[in-house]
């Protein structure tokens, strides 16, 4: 498996997010396999939580379905363990309480032992989670921090000095799936962040189409697509695993094309 640093070597990358266990973990595993073949840069795997307060209705509903199907951290690790031939680095995304309950140290060890590259926790800011994130860094699990358009300079540089792998730049003041994203002044936002941070910058929240990718790609190193993919999975859920994987594949290919097409002069 590639490292997060290597993932950005090939130029700008797509970072799809999927909710583990929606509709079931076998389907999640197949989607990961397909995304790997398509050549996405990093795969973000969401661990469900009952009260996901940074997420909009689409990911909330996916989390509920995943929980109803019995998805938990142990089962997600088990699924990942069996995906050893996937080359694309995997980042786990989830809220802090289930991780605390699992045991912070065990979580880090078990994530590493099934090949996970990084962890992103939207309700654990860098300073609040210092102890946890320091252990992550020390053991080689990249802590993926988030910054937002209202993050102040001083805090940006503190986060910048701690960041490993890449930095997750939230595209607007809002939650996942917010159609308004990204904000107007994306260029100056990214420039401001870059002046404090040396790791690659990924932009996410509300980016749901090839057009939006075309609009923001000059300013970023990676683009996260979450709710749009999760939505396709839920819409095709009744048609079976093959249809789901196929539909995700078609959509993701279009996104990759938009990212790779040279900008019009």
């Amino acid at each position, binding site marked *: 498996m590639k490292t997060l640093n290597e993932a950005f070597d090939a130029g700008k990358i797509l970072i799809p997010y999927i909710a583990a266990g929606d509709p079931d973990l076998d389907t999640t595993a197949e989607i990961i396999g397909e995304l790997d073949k398509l050549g996405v840069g990093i795969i973000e795997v969401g661990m469900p939580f009952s*009260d996901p307060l940074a997420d909009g209705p689409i990911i909330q509903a996916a989390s509920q379905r995943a929980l109803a199907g019995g998805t938990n951290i142990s089962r997600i690790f088990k699924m990942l363990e069996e995906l050893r031939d996937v080359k694309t680095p995997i980042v786990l995304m989830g809220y802090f*309480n289930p991780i605390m309950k699992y045991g912070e140290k065990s979580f880090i060890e078990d994530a590493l032992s099934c090949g996970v590259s990084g962890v992103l926790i939207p*309700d654990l800011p860098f300073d*609040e989670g210092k102890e946890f994130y320091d252990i992550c860094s020390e053991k080689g699990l990249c802590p993926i921090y988030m910054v937002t358009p209202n993050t102040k300079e001083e805090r940006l540089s503190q986060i910048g000095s701690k960041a490993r792998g890449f930095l997750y730049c939230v595209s607007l*003041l809002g*939650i996942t799936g917010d159609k308004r994203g990204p904000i107007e002044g994306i260029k100056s936002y990214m420039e401001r962040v870059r002046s404090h941070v040396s790791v690659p910058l990924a932009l996410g929240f509300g980016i749901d189409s090839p057009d939006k990718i075309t609009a923001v790609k000059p300013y970023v190193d990676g683009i996260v697509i979450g709710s749009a993919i999760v939505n396709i999975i839920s819409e095709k859920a009744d048609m079976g695993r093959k249809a789901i994987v196929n539909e995700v594949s078609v959509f993701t290919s279009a996104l990759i094309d938009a990212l790779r097409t040279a900008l019009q002069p």
Partner: protein
Amino acid sequence: MDLKGYFGRFGGRFVPETLIPALEELEEAFYKAINDEAFMAQYRYLLKDYSGRPTSLYFADRLSKHLGDIKLYLKREDLNHTGAHKINNVLGQILLALRMNKKRIIAETGAGQHGLATATAAAKFGLECHIYMGLEDMHRQALNVYKMRTLGAEVIPVTSGTMTLKDATNEAIRDWVTNVSTTHYVIGSVVGPHPYPMMVREFQRVIGDETKEQILQKEGRLPDLLVACVGGGSNSMGMFYPFVNDKDVKMVGVEAAGYGIETGQHAAALTGGSVGVLHGSRSYILQDGNGQIVPAVSISAGLDYPGVGPEHSFYHETGRVHYTHATDDEAIEAFKLLCETEGIIPALESAHALAFLVREHKNIEPGTLAVLCLSGRGDKDMEAIKGKLFEEEM
């Protein structure tokens, strides 16, 4: 409390990065305000002339007789404007919102008392107001929904999760993340990320400060025992906090045991839960073996919450406050008793506090001087309780 908002190992700021600047701004504004005599004068003025404080400390003589040899006073928070202690905190926070120039107000509500107080103060100051309320709670507390709408607030039904206070809080936080530059989020209890638990305590401590003065005047000594119900924990913290260093004053916080702790169907985070992170702070919560939040169960919409303020978790572990619980049935019994002995219809939340005394008075030393925080009045609960009190006739 330390600088990061921790009470021992409880508290903190477990929120999306978007909210960090808003919490820092709020913390700064709060400290400035409480050290500004003009702000405090306006706050006190509103408490007095708008809400009707000080609320009385009333000697419940007939109820006392019923409880053996306890001498019981009721701190009448039910006599506040809008009928509960919630307005104390809301007035403080609305004045802060005005200072921060935030013209849009949001709040979560369970019983509707906090939502009602917020809608009331927003109307008084001409602010736009949106209240998140679980659909289930809107049915249980229909009267308060009408009142909030009458006052010009938009009441937004929350249909996610269990459709109660926990989910309304999630939605309010999501709204705040989305509208953070224009909006102040008025949290209704001593929960949430720092500075809320400390700030709400400071706006509610008027309950305990007044009680101290009143009991000294009436009895010439401090009480032996304070009793209050604990949902998120604001009326109890407001009552307890000014007495924390008075070592001889015993304090009892009563959580909602729903159908009974042993059934797993309850709302007792401290006495039936474990440590976790919910809605921005580390505290005791109700959760399963995978760290998923378990829905709370209680007849009382205001106590029906799977978390509790971090400072309560701290006092629970240090032993400064004794936490116990009362079931739905015990609360209904206590509700009836207060109606029949004193002619006071309490909120079902407050009835839980009284239920502790009804159950335990035989184990309380004769002559004990006790104060019970009567956090609210029961009008809002008449619909819910009707079927329980008059099953045969109706």
